[in-house]
């Protein structure tokens, strides 16, 4: 088969090389198309990864529920009444709602997001203080660096122990490798450090986690006078029921118990990670489609451009083809020559476009790494890059089909008569 003939490849390369300017112009469309497609894919992946990463502090089947204030008068109560969750709510939910895998009530000193001064010897700084159940390990990913996490015994005996985040350990216990067994002071009360934990992710969420200290939930309620109040509930669900169904079941029970109008949507706040994650996934699917569509069309335009220019140059080259035919070129050798030219042009152009795009993505990565605000690291999957290169090469052959047909139909008599 002449398509694999070394001599023909040589002839194709010589022809292209001798007509370098024409070849480069023809290739530009493909270079641009591939460049756009790969760069867009790279940035799309980067954005997706950064969002997924910022989500990864949360287990994706988790639901968070907290009390707010009522907005509708109900059952003899006026609106604006605060809803406060309690230990009894937790038991009620655990006993009556199906599909719950883990449930862990949480409290944060002075409320969600606030910080409290913590002291070790002459150093003090402010960190989040959180009352925690052992179950939290299953709801939020964490990495134990030293010692252990809170256990059932700590809860039962309301021990004055604390697990501290890595940053807390670094900042308060300077020059101390392992702070377990040492005591620190929170709001005038001393706690023994039993462990240090780190976050597996370097995200916002993880950042909060390593700047927090965790004490047993029961201890928290007792020493800070929270009685039986619960800040919020962290729940993970198994896959028997949808997260939305479980969320609404929990809310129904809570509304009934706290005498809230069933249609009052403001009284109980919630965050459903599964739902949010699902929406994100839809968004990504949309973005992917858009990128492939726009990039693919750009590439297609490039390929059509190659075909078009080749077709025009075939008209110019009628004489050359006529000469080749008179000198003994068979129709197939002409056709395969044109197909190969188009194939070589598109694949080399595609390769250049790919290299340029990867270079741009690498450059962007370096720039983004130096700026702390963004964690977008544009990336392109090797497989996708190779796949697109294969598609381009194939498209190159397709782009040559029309010009090749035109060249095969050249009548040497007419071509050579044209003076």
């Amino acid at each position, binding site marked *: 088969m002449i398509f694999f003939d070394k001599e023909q490849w040589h002839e194709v390369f010589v022809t292209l090389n001798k007509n370098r300017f024409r070849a480069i112009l023809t290739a530009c469309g493909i270079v641009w198309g591939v460049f756009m497609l790969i760069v867009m894919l790279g940035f799309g992946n980067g954005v997706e990864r950064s969002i997924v990463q910022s989500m990864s502090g949360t287990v994706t089947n988790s639901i968070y529920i907290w009390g707010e204030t009522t907005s509708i008068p109900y059952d003899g109560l006026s609106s604006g009444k605060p809803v406060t969750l309690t230990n009894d709510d937790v038991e009620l939910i655990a006993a009556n709602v199906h599909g719950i895998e883990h449930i862990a009530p949480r409290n944060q000193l002075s409320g969600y997001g606030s910080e409290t001064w913590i002291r070790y010897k002459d150093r003090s700084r402010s960190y989040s203080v959180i009352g925690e159940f052992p179950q939290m390990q299953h709801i939020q990913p964490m990495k134990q660096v030293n010692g252990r996490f809170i256990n059932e015994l700590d809860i039962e005996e309301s021990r004055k122990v604390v697990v501290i985040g890595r940053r807390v350990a670094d900042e308060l216990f300077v020059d101390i490798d392992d702070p377990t067994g040492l005591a620190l002071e929170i709001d005038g009360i001393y706690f023994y450090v039993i462990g240090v934990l780190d976050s597996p992710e370097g995200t916002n969420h993880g950042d909060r986690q390593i700047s927090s200290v965790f004490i047993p939930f029961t201890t928290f309620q007792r020493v800070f006078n929270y009685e039986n109040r619960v800040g919020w509930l962290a729940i993970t669900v198994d896959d028997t029921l949808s997260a939305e169904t479980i969320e609404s079941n929990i809310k129904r029970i809570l509304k009934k118990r706290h005498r809230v109008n069933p249609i009052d949507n403001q009284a109980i706040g919630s965050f459903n990670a599964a739902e949010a994650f699902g929406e994100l996934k839809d968004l990504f699917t949309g973005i992917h489609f858009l990128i492939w569509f726009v990039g693919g069309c750009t590439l297609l335009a490039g390929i059509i451009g190659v075909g078009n220019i080749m077709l025009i140059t075939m008209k110019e080259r009628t004489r050359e083809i006529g*000469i080749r035919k008179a*000198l003994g070129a*068979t129709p197939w050798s002409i056709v395969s020559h044109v197909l190969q030219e188009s194939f070589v042009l598109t694949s080399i152009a595609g390769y250049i476009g790919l290299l340029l795009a990867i270079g741009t993505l690498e450059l962007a990565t370096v720039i983004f790494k130096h700026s702390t605000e963004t964690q977008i690291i544009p990336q392109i999957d090797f497989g996708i890059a190779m796949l697109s290169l294969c598609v381009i090469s194939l498209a190159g052959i397709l782009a040559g089909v029309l010009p090749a047909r035109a060249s095969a139909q050249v009548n040497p008599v007419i071509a050579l008569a044209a003076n």
Partner: protein
Amino acid sequence: MIELQRINKSYNTETTNLHVLKDLSLTIAAGEMVSLMGSSGSGKSTLLNILGILDSYDSGEYHLDGRLIRDMSEHTAALYRSKTIGFVFQSFNLIGFKTAAENVALPLYYQGVSFKKRHKMALDSLERFGLLDWAEHLPSQMSGGQNQRVAIARALVTKPRIILADEPTGALDSENSNDIIAVLNEINKEGITVVIVTHEEDIAEQTKRCVRIQDGKIISDSAVSK
């Protein structure tokens, strides 16, 4: 070598029916040097295209080297051209972006000769016509006479049995014309059949046999007296 029997060829368009060759019969033996004379429109170029299997004919029979040439696929025609026929054209028809050596090597490429071998054969062929120093020059860097000699070197490189020359001196001055005809005569002495289409009397006089064509018919066929 060449045997034409009652060849008819017409070009039909929507408005005209041009009967170019009318019952034309002609025999050319191996080793002859023949000129086909005629004014433009006489059908001599069409005849040459049929001889070169570049064009088809409507009726009659054309035997080339004992084989009937009719209804050939383009592929087979290409192989026949490649093996037996060398072309020389009025406008040289060299490929502009290829050097003299590359142009000469091109017919060998279509015969499947390897790059090294065909390059060497091309240089040998060029050397014979005193063009070795011009091997790496492009056609645009050479004179008309040189270009035509490159074209002849190209036609001969495959060692064809027949050379078909269409107005080979049409674009040349008289000095170069005589030079080219001398070259063609020399080739003929080696036993290669040479057919030259021309409308110039002094060119025809330098061949051995002159066939005059008018309105698609042979009006005279005689040996050239020296």
